[in-house]
């Protein structure tokens, strides 16, 4: 019984099996050439690699925003590649949290409403309990006092912290972050990353972070380096990020 619980706990939240992705019809460009990856709960994984190596494509496939040309993607035990568009949308909304490079908050909504949005989408309408949960999340990222501010009234670092709170709103087992600090100064970037690290430790949500920044990659549990659409190294930091 205890083994089963442990097995369940350590069941991978993300599995990529032989994932290929090509673009074009006449001239075919193969961006990913057979990616195999497993991410377990609580893992903070950095995906690094030079520009054009296929990192973003990989993140889009993991985030179910795109479909692989071949291979399989499993998220929280469910085979995403077998789902239709509505199934993908549901899985994306409930099992994955996103943090984008340019925060991508909704400008017409306050910080609090932005954090409430994934819950509002899942529930079909805003409900009173969401308000409390969103406020608690903003408190966790140190922005409870700016709950009513519009994104345009917040600094870059604050916006990214709101985006992190929003990604955590659904208690999704997998959080994807695309260059989450790419748009911030070094000091703010460090603080934002530290916040993600801390949340990852306390919530045991798996984080997959695409980054160009070797110093951030060094601070992750695991660094996956992608070059020319293939994983060339995968392991603990120790210089792996530098390839």
């Amino acid at each position, binding site marked *: 019984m205890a083994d089963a619980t442990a097995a369940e706990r350590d069941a991978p939240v993300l599995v990529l099996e032989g994932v290929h992705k090509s673009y074009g019809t006449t001239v075919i460009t193969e961006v990913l050439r057979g990616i195999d990856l497993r991410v377990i709960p609580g893992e903070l994984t950095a995906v690094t690699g030079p520009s054009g190596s296929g990192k973003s494509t990989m993140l889009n496939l993991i985030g179910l925003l795109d479909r692989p040309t071949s291979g399989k993607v499993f998220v929280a035990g469910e085979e995403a590649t077998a789902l239709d568009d509505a199934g993908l949308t549901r899985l*994306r*909304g409930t099992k994955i949290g*996103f943090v984008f490079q340019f925060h991508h908050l909704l400008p*017409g909504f306050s910080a609090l409403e932005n954090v409430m*949005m994934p819950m509002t*989408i899942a529930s079909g309408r805003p409900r009173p309990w969401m308000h409390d949960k969103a406020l608690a999340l903003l408190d966790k990222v140190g922005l409870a006092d700016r709950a009513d501010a519009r994104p345009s009234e917040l600094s870059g670092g604050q916006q990214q912290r709101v985006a992190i709170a929003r990604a955590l709103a659904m208690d999704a087992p997998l959080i994807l972050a695309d260059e989450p600090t790419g748009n911030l100064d070094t000091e703010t970037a460090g603080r934002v990353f530290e916040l993600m690290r801390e949340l990852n430790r306390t919530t045991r949500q798996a984080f997959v972070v695409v980054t160009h920044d070797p110093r951030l990659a060094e601070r992750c549990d695991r660094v996956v380096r992608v070059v020319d659409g293939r994983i060339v190294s995968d392991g603990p930091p120790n210089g792996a990020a530098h390839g």
Partner: protein
Amino acid sequence: MPLEWYVAIRFLREGRMQTLLIVAGAAIGVAVMLFLSALMGGLAESLIAQTLGTQAHIVVRPVVEAARPQRTSTRDTLVMPRVERTAQRVRSIVGWQQVMRDVERAPGVVSVSPTVSGPVFAQRGDASKSVILLGIDPERFARIYPIRARLREGVYRPVGDSCVIGTELASDLGVSVGDKVRLSVVDGASDVFTVAGLFDLGNREVNRRWVLVSMRSAQTLLDLVGGVSAIDVTVDDVFAATTIAESLSARTGLVADSWMQTNAQLMVGLRSQSSSSNLIQVFVVLAVAMGIASVLIVSVVQKGKEIGILRAMGTSRRSVLVVFLLQGGIVGLLGSIVGVGLGMGLSVFFASLAVAADGSPLFPVHVSLALIARCTVVAVSTGLLSAVLPARRAARLDPAVAIRNG
């Protein structure tokens, strides 16, 4: 509030100036539609009211006499192919009491009035005028023509040797209430009547030509004892008059002419007026639709990134579609609310300009609830339909591309 409403309202609030302009466009469209409809409706109503003020909705009369060509009995060969037209004389409806009861019971009929009418001369002193003698049942006649309300002098009492005439005829003959008038038929029969009252039915020709007397007097003068020459009918729906007339004709075997057939030219005029007004309204609706659609298409482009984020967070394509359809619908609804107010204001203002010499409005420009409902339905439907294209475009957006390019 459902997600789609919540996001749609926020999107509209976010693009405040765009929303304001697009709502103003829709409002102007609705105002023009409402005003034009109210104006044309009022004009038509006034023309019809004027026409029907001196006409029955349906007149039932005997079948026109016509000579038939003579044919052989064995083969269908014409023996006397030349047929002279028959001169029409004043004839009675056979069994008119029974016919009147039948007509009265027919669906849609409100009231009936038998009349005996024929041409006579009205004379007083040297003055002689050709007029139409109308022998009537005063009560029934008053249910069809607004004669009591239009009585200008004296009393409405066309009984015995009294008659009621129009103001124009009174002026032509130089008579007033209490004076005597001689009415003579061409073949010589004549009688003297006392003018009991003068009416003004708003139609100069009627005021100059009609002489109302009792049925019995008219029957005697026109040599139609016990008979009536026509039955006037009013119906509950004036625009169904032709249909009802057809059914009355089939029911009685007599000729039944509706006011619409008698005034075919007026009807053509009204229809043309209504068609041109409808055409203008169609173009107004098209212009509004294109305005809403273009603003929403721009909005889809501007909000591409936001749509991508919403999709990434689990919003379905259907919800994105509904968000944009709702924006179109809300714009249409807001436009109709503002537009109805504007249109009503315009109507009141116009009605205050188009007044007769005595200060009364020339014609009613009234805005009915049905018209408001129609404008609102058209505006909201236009909004929704104009939003279809932008909404489908938004729903088809690839979230990854939208986020990257947004």
